[in-house]
């Protein structure tokens, strides 16, 4: 025999105040408490209330796609691994494929500097701009 509830039951999702993506003013700071570890210390990244970098933030102002190459023949292609597990070995094998099958293509393997989960610096992209013609970027997972 089931019990008939005489009272209303409240939803756990209701009453929360929702806003658009991106941190509202004042967000992004450490949660309260004197015991918060300073940046860069401690173990795995805590899951804080604000969106992680790369999420929620608006894309850069430019909306253009680069002009594609006519051919890869005699071009320099950077094979950039993100540092995510398996990416290094994948790019190693991709470089091997180019050497065996398209030897006129120069490949340069690099690891993306900075955090594995975000695009947080331009150092390598500046190098590619000077020395390269295209990039294979991955492997996301």
């Amino acid at each position: 025999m089931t019990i008939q509830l005489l009272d209303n039951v409240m939803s756990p999702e209701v009453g929360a105040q929702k806003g658009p993506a991106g941190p509202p003013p004042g967000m992004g700071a450490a949660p309260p408490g004197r015991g918060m570890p300073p940046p860069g210390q401690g173990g795995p990244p805590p899951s804080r209330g604000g969106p992680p970098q790369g999420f929620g933030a608006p894309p850069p102002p430019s909306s253009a796609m680069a002009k594609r190459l006519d051919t890869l023949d005699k071009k320099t292609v950077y094979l950039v691994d993100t540092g995510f597990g398996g990416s290094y070995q994948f790019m190693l094998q991709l470089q091997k494929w180019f050497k065996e099958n398209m030897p006129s293509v120069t490949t340069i393997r690099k690891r993306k500097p900075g955090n594995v989960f975000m695009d947080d610096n331009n150092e390598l992209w500046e190098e590619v701009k000077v020395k390269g013609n295209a990039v294979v970027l991955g492997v996301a997972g």
Partner: protein
Amino acid sequence: MAAVAAGSRKLEGTYSIPVAPVSTYQFKSVADENQGTTKQNIPFIYTPHPVIGLSPEALDKYIVGNDPDTGKPVIDEIIDVLTKPIKEKKVAAGAPVAVKTAPTELFLKPDTEDNLQRLFYERGWTDGLPIILPTEERVKKMLAGTSASPDEVVAESFKFDTREMVKYTVSNIAVIAVMAGAKPEYFPVILALAATRQSSLMPSTTPFEAMVLVNGPIRNEIGMNCGIGAFSAVNMANSVIGRAWTLMSIAHGFAKPRQTLWSSQGNNHTYNNMCCAENEERSVWEPFHVTKGFKAEESVVSIFRGWTFVNSTGAASNRSVTEELNIELSVMPPLNSSATIIMDPLVARNLKENEGFKTKLDFCKHLSKNIKMKNGQFWKTDYIDMLVASAAYNGVEPYASWKKLPDDALIAPYHIPENINIIVVGGETSPLWKCADYGYSGSAPVDKWRAHPAGAECKDSECGLPDAPGEYDK
């Protein structure tokens, strides 16, 4: 995924460099979400999943094999993406609009208990266990456990799936506390947990777990167990407070499979997040919260997070505690020198009275100096390579120096003693301990959420009474 999407967008748009972005097919939905709202049509190429852990021969097959999304060879797509025009997306004019979740009514329609239990489960509001249904009366009673206004915002959270920021009030958390089975006197601890703005569930493919530690007078006032069987499933306060954290994480949207919940195997420590209290009365050292700058008389909740947890099965009768810990911690190369060791009061007393470690930090310094690991073991650990190698490449010490050492060189990976956390918990039936790779994620004060000042007597004599006096160590 975010790094590949954002990097591709920048290379294409800012540097005018054509990019072939590669992802595994498992994360196509995330790649689609990361497309952004510009005209850029980031042309993701997919390999089968996973890439990690495969032999070179298997990866060769991925490269010449087909993209599971298009049925075309991956290598052909890479070449095509770099040499053939990419269509721009058609985008609507105006500012991007976040996808918002559909509104839900505050009060659900009255129904039978069975039907309402089923409704909560089917809506993904529970941890799979039955809940206490949050009736208006029960929520009102819970709100009496704090002096905070029901409308006060306790926490803000980012919803990964809808890209919304969500603010949670005291009332929202009260509903969760009722669902978890909390007594009103537990509510200040649960509010403090919410105020950390951290989720017990992480949107990671790895099996993250977390731990909740309560320090200060409120431990005894609400009958938390810090003695015998503190981690066993026997104490209401420990069980319910830890559960409430995961229930609020679920309600905050962190448990939607393949949207916000990606952990391939999951982790059942998240049912109650190993919630316990420190045995301050039987510890020979200062309480954990005091080591973090709080006063002993303050009540504080602290959070730890990591992946790996080891129970000691021996009491160091043939080796020293340090030698035993060296063996146990060697399976978990530390991220930023972090470890958490939870030791029985007997162990702490022996370390202080017989081995001369006057403080927790003294012992941590000893561990830091003496625990060694082969350099190759450290760097070939996936998360070390993913999260620490970039620091080494940027010259950050000691990682830059370690990176130059041969694989068989011994390093002292716990190089920051302050990042080793020592907690004293247990009932003194055996000198055992537990150790984990947990890092300290922060603390939040409990007292600001109390219904009455700490130590004040409740008018109804109901608040602060421990459960079943005498059942556990006091």
